[in-house]
Structure formats: C-alpha cells, structure tokens
C-alpha cells in the first residue's frame, strides 16, 4: 500500500475494485465503513454483489475482466471534463500527453459496451472521482489475478496519477495483500530477481556487498525462475529439486491435475509444513516445523509495517524451526549460514538491508514500524511518494489496452467462474479447519450461482451440483444468491473436498506469471436434489 490502513477512515472517496474486503480483509472494511459513516463516498466496483455493497454509494457491477476498459473510459471522461489534476500532471509526471492521447480511444460509450455499465452511470462515477479533493483506491486479487493483471494495476496507477491522488494522506493506490506475511516474503528477497529490500541480483555492487557480508563467493547474478516456471520446468527435467516451505502447492496452483503431474516429475520434493495436506503425499522428505504461536520473529503487513510475532506455546517435541532445518542442511552442504535464532537471522539481514536498516526488534517491542526506515532514528513512513515525489523521480504513465479473459463462456461451458476467499476460512484452511467452530460456521464449499441461471438449470440452494471445466470437475452444494451476477458463478479454494483450483485455468500474466484465478468457464449440472432445503437468511458471508 502506498498509504496506511487507518488513513482510510478519513478518506473523502474510496474506490474499491476487485476486493471483497468484508471477507478478505475485514478490519480494512471496518475503517472503510467508518469513513462512510462520516460521509465519505464509497464506490464498490465488482462483478459480484459483495457484502460491502450494502454500505456503498454506488455498486458498479462491471463485467468480469473488463477493468481496463472501464477505468480507461473513466479517465477519458475525466480529461474531457477538465477534472484531471493538471498541476500534478505537469510537475510530477513524465508523459502526461501520452495518457491523454491513449485514453482517447476509450470514450465512455465504447467502454460501457465492454464493461456493461450504462453510460450515465459511468459519467457519474467519473464525476465523483474527478471532483473529489482526494480519493483512495483499494484493490485486491480481483485486479491482479488476470492474464492482464500487470496492466490492470498500471491502469489504476494511471488513474490515481491523473487525479493527483498519490503522495497524500487518505489517498493513494492500496493493494490489500492476502496473506499475513506476503509483503515480508517479498521484502526478504524470496523472489528470483532481488535480495532482501529489493536489491537487484544482477547488480554487481549488490553481489559484492552480499558476498562480503555472507562470507561466500560465487553468488549468481542471473535472475532465477518464477514459481510457475519452476513447476513447468519439472516436466522437461529443468527442475529436479523443489524445496517447499508452507506452500500447499497442489491446492493453491491453478489446474490441480496439471500441478500434480509437475510435482510427480520431481526427483526430490522437500516439504516443510505443519499439517498433512494435499501436497505432502508427493513429498520425498517431510520436515515438521514450528507453527505460528511457537516461534519468535516478525511479519510485515500490507502497509509495510514490520511487527513482532512471539512464542506463546511449546512446540510439539519432534518439530523444529524452518530456519534450523536450512542451517543444518547448509552445514551438511559445506556452508555455515549462521542461523542460531530468529533475532540473529534478522540482524544478519539488517546488516545489508536498506529500507529495514532502522527497524530492530527492540524498536518494535510495543508497536510496529513502517518501512522505508533507513536509520535507527527514522520514525518510519506512513505513506509513500510524499508531495508527489516518486522513487524514480517523475511518475510514468503506461499504455494499457483491454483484453478479455483467456477463457470465455461458450456453448459447451456457458458460465463464467470466478474464485476467491471466504470470511470463515483462510487459504487451504489447514489453520481454520483445525480451529474450533470456524468449520461449523462454514462447513463445506458452495457454488454461488445467480437465481436466473439456477432457474434455467433447475437448481435450488442446497442441491448437489457438478461444476466442470476443461481441466476438471468438482461436486459441491449450490448457493443460489444474488451475490453472483447473471452468468457468473463463484467458489473458493479453501476446501480440499471441492477445491476451485481443480477447475481454474493455468494461464498467466506474462510479466508476473500470476494465474487467471478470477476467470474461467464452467458447465453446471445438478447431481442430486437437496434432502433438506438450505435456507437463505440473508446473513453476511454465508447462507
């Protein structure tokens, strides 16, 4: 996030796109709803009628995967009416004339045809955005999990730059990151092109610095493979060993049958985890490791806040910390990595860190600090690009053009399927289904389907149905609900008994290699009538 979560409560306008935050990031939604209570305008842009739409000034129910056309159309209208922030464009961006020209090919009339939003409504949304003093954009995986995910993000960045909404409080471009430490995993250099703090592996100076600090030679300056490539390479022998910590790969990658084929092709598959899951059966070695609550350390949240994690429980006797396993393997392979405790590892990282250099365990004993925090005296950074000064100098607009999802509904697979998370569960549910009561609140996976489609197929809530794509099929109960749009179904990947990733499409954004989890096509058939009809009480987040 360029900005901080609590700033949202003071926003004048909040533009939420591709984010079901009442379920995925409930505490963020509390701040957004507090802002609404104080009079903020809330625009929720989503193909689904998520619970947040209850509080929205406008629910803009765009068609699945039409984001670029919709946003470019809004920008066209914003320029046409003179609502762009010309001062910001002139002083803080490199190529304002380009973006003006690019969005000319997206008049609202054309955009409206693609995204399915009436012209008058699009004009109203453009007016609200264009005339607000500032606006915060929040997005989640509904933006990134498309074959055009990178361009989706760039389009939102373009929008916030033409409106001058960066570098100030209660505004900005705010991706809500899905997992507790996905920000930290990136910051720590669990990425193929950078060391920790985004220091490039192909920069000779960085390599020299790391070799010196780590006391090793021969570090590679060739960027490594991204996760989907690593897996694909297993099939032609390019990847033979995979070391996997806390990643239930089989259940989380798209097209499960294909993922299993890739994993089976490995010569050595090492898994460090806390529970048996769909992935562990394929492991050649399993290392049982400490869980949350059993080890010291830090997590970094979506607003770049580095916070302490502490030990509260004694771990089971046979378990070890994940880092200890790596230390022991390193020793056996001839390198002493120097991992003796969490704090020792953190300090080892900090020695060569940039944006984390000023953050120590001691400083975050009571409350976390937000990076960049380059020195021990630095107070941390609540929001980035202050006064419109970007890290690269001036903001650069990128050209983006709308492309439809890779797989569109057709005669054989007539319904679109989108996937995501539910309030009651997390990821592959190994944590939530092993905690008391959450499973009672949401005991099995459901296929959300719009009443119009359900009527055509003769399906009622609670009926057992089969959802079949070109890649596989799952059998689960139907939830007939207006949360879905006509022609659109939805389900999650939490339950191994009926996991969305059996049917999702393994096509990827060419830059990030993020899969298009948010759009594929399915056919739905009834398997069995419900024994007892499921009652829809119109509760939040469950039938």
């Amino acid at each position, binding site marked *: 996030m360029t900005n901080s979560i609590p700033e949202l409560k003071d926003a004048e306008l909040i533009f939420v796109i591709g984010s079901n935050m009442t379920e995925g990031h409930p*505490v963020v939604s509390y701040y957004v709803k507090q802002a609404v209570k104080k009079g903020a305008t809330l625009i929720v842009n989503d193909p689904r009628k998520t619970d947040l739409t209850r509080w929205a000034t406008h629910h803009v129910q765009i068609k699945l995967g039409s984001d670029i056309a919709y946003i470019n159309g809004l920008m066209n209208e914003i320029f046409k009416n003179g609502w762009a922030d010309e001062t910001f464009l002139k002083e803080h961006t490199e190529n304002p004339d380009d973006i003006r020209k690019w969005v000319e090919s997206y008049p609202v009339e054309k955009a409206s045809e693609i995204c399915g939003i009436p012209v008058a409504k699009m004009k109203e949304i453009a007016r609200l955005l264009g005339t607000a003093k500032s606006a915060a954009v929040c997005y989640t995986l509904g933006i990134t999990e498309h074959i055009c995910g990178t361009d989706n993000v760039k389009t939102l960045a373009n929008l916030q730059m033409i409106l001058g909404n960066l570098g100030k409080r209660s505004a900005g471009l705010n991706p809500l990151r899905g997992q507790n430490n996905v920000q930290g995993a990136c910051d720590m250099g669990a990425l193929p092109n950078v060391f920790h703090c985004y220091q490039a592996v192909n920069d000779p100076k960085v390599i020299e610095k790391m070799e010196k600090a780590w006391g090793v030679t021969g570090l590679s300056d060739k*960027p490594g493979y991204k996760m989907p490539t690593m897996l694909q390479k297993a099939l032609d*022998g390019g990847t033979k060993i995979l070391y996997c910590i806390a990643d239930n790969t089989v259940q989380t990658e798209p097209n499960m049958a294909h993922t299993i084929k890739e994993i089976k092709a490995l010569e050595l598959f090492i898994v460090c985890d806390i529970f048996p899951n769909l992935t562990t059966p394929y492991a050649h070695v399993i290392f049982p490791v400490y869980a949350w609550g059993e080890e010291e350390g830090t997590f970094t949240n979506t607003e770049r806040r580095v*916070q302490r994690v502490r030990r*509260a429980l004694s771990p089971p006797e046979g378990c070890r910390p994940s880092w200890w396993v790596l230390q022991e393997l390193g020793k056996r392979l001839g390198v002493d990595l120097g991992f003796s405790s969490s704090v020792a590892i953190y300090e080892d990282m900090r020695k060569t860190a940039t944006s984390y250099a000023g953050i120590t365990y001691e400083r975050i004993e009571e409350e976390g600090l937000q990076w960049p925090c380059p020195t021990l005296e630095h107070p941390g950074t609540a929001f980035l690009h202050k006064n419109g000064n970007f890290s690269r100098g001036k903001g650069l607009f990128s050209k983006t053009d709308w492309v439809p999802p890779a797989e569109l509904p057709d005669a054989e697979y007539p319904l679109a399927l989108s996937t995501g998370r539910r309030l009651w569960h997390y990821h592959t549910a190994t944590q939530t289904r092993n905690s008391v009561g959450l499973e009672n609140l949401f005991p099995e996976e459901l296929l959300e389907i719009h009443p119009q489609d359900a009527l055509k197929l003769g399906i009622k809530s609670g009926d057992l149905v089969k959802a079949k794509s070109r890649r596989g099929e799952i059998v689960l109960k139907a939830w007939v609900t207006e949360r879905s749009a006509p022609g659109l179904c939805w389900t999650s990947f939490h339950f191994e008994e009926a996991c969305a990733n059996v049917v999702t499409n393994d096509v990827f954004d060419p830059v990030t290699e993020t899969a298009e989890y948010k759009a594929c096509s399915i056919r739905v058939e009834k398997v069995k009538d419900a024994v007892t009809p499921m009652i829809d009480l119109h509760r939040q987040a469950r039938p």
Partner: protein
Amino acid sequence: MSVTIDGKLFDFKPGATVLEVAREHGVKIPSLCYHPKIGPAGRCRICVVEVEGQKGLETACTLAARDGMVVSTDTPKVLEVRRMVVNLLLSNGEHNCLSCEQNGQCELQDAAYQLGIEAPAFVVDGPPAEVDKSSEMIVIDRRKCIMCGRCIDACNKVVVNEVLGMGERGHESRVVCDTDRPMADSTCVQCGECSQLCPVGAIIDKKAIGKGRVSNLTKVNTTCPYCGVGCQLTLHVDKDANRIVKVTGREVLPNNGMLCVKGRYGYEFPSSPKRLTQPMIMKNGKHEPVSWDEALDYTAGRIKEIVAKNGSDVFSAFGSGRITNENNYAIAKFTRAVIKNNNVDHCART
C-alpha cells in the same frame, strides 16, 4: 488552558472532556458506558463529578473541560450518587461473580469494590432475562447486562457491522441482534468487538468459558496469522495446559483492537493433534518416520548428488507468505549462498 481536578492543576487541549483530562493524568473516574473508542455516551452516570459553582452533578464523559474549571471527583455527594448507580445496576441483574468469566476484569465489580459495596441494597423484580448461546463464538448473557450500550456502539460505530441494537422499551429494553433474532441466525459475522468492549460479563467469548481465570493466564502479544492487515493481538495462554484460551485485540495500530472472526477465534490450530510431528522419508512409496539426522543427511546427500549431476539450476525453492521474515530470509539466503542460484520465489504471484 488548565483545569483543577481534586486540587491539582492540569493543562488540556481544547475539546477534551473532564474524563479524558483526568485519565490522562492518572485520576481514576469509573466509567461503564464510556470507552475511548466510542466517545462520550452519558448513559451509565457513574462518572459523575462535582463542578465548583454549579448546581447538581455532571457526567465527566460528556463534560467539556473549560479553562479555570474546578472539579472534584470524590466528594461525599459524588460517592453517594455513584454508590446509588452501582447499587441499582447490581440490583437489576444477576451479577454473580463466582463463575463469571469476567471476574477480575469486570468494570462493575471494580466499581463496587472501590465503593465498598458487598451486596446489592435493593431487590428489583424485572422481566426474566435470557441467555443467547445460539452462536458459535459469542454468548449474550442478558442477566448480567447493565444496558450501557457499549456493545451497540462497538457494532455500529467501530466495526460498523450494524447488527446489535436496543430492542423494546423501558423495563423490557434489551440488546438484540437485527430484528431480535438469535445471534446465530442474524447478520452477525462473529467479529467479537462487542465482547471486547463489554465492561461486564454480559457478552463473552464462548470458547473461553471455564478454561481459565484471568489471573492464571499469561498474556503474550503477537501478530495475527491470517490476512495481510497484521492485526495486533494478545494471546491469553494457559502455560500449564500449553494452550491458547482466548484472544483479544490490542488497542494499537493498525487495528485499534478490532479483529475478525478468524483473528479472534481461529487460534487452536497449533495444538491440533493432526500436526506433523516427525520427519518422514518416502520409502517404497510410503512415508516412514525417521530421525532428524537421517532426514537431514538423506536430503543433503540427495541435493548434492542431483546438483553434481545436473548443475545447480535444477534446484528451486518456495518461501511463503505465511511464514516469518526470518524464515523467508533463511530460504532466500540458503538458495543463494549454498545452492548458488536465484531460483527462490513464493506464493505472492499465485
């Protein structure tokens, strides 16, 4: 600008209430309906104070501090009114502390203790109050409800889930979910903010009932293991049983005490009997438990062998968005410094 409280002079910022100024400087004024997150409520009237030159008493939580104001918080008149308020509250419900979850952290109990009330002075016959145990995580025990309204403000103003409200009128008034549905059938999402702010034992965490007195539990501050918000939590741990009994939100950034159903109630998984607890190696198509040394020797040997034959590029590693920074740094450093390639990634892109 300054105000005198119990003979001491305190500076204050314009807009502050007498209660806020007093608390800031360590002067204790009890409050049952006021909570810093909700602001002035003026309902319970236990925070009354005497202001020089003014007839009658004022509620400190709604009283704006004025320059030169002289306030007394413990005159006989104030204490008499407070005693009456607490007596009436105690008489109006079934405040039996013996097995109450809130015993030792109950604000009504504290007030009674400070005022030296051993037993309620009156007997009041009200309509029977029910206990709503229908929901998975939260119990509403209306027998102990003092109608302070904190839970309603918590639900409507803090987390803005808009479920709780005051139903009926007069003697019959009570806290209800939606249109007086059982909590389990209401729109409640079980975030538990109501239980966190309830000053008494009227809204409590169901799973913690009978699992440990507050005095026997150890508090450990940590970060939530679920989504990317990074809510700050306090784990209430029974060290002898080696289990987490209850979770509360810390009133600090980024969450200011607020949590969701997973963060507040999804805490038992580390103690699950289903945990992996032994290293295992696949032998003849089956996982067999082995010693740590055997598992490590085998793995290191295999890595050495395969890399020697095929080059280091055949090694890849996944860190994770669910493990600590330290563990992610460890896998990144291992891949780079031991294997000497950059094939390390994690689930950020998938």
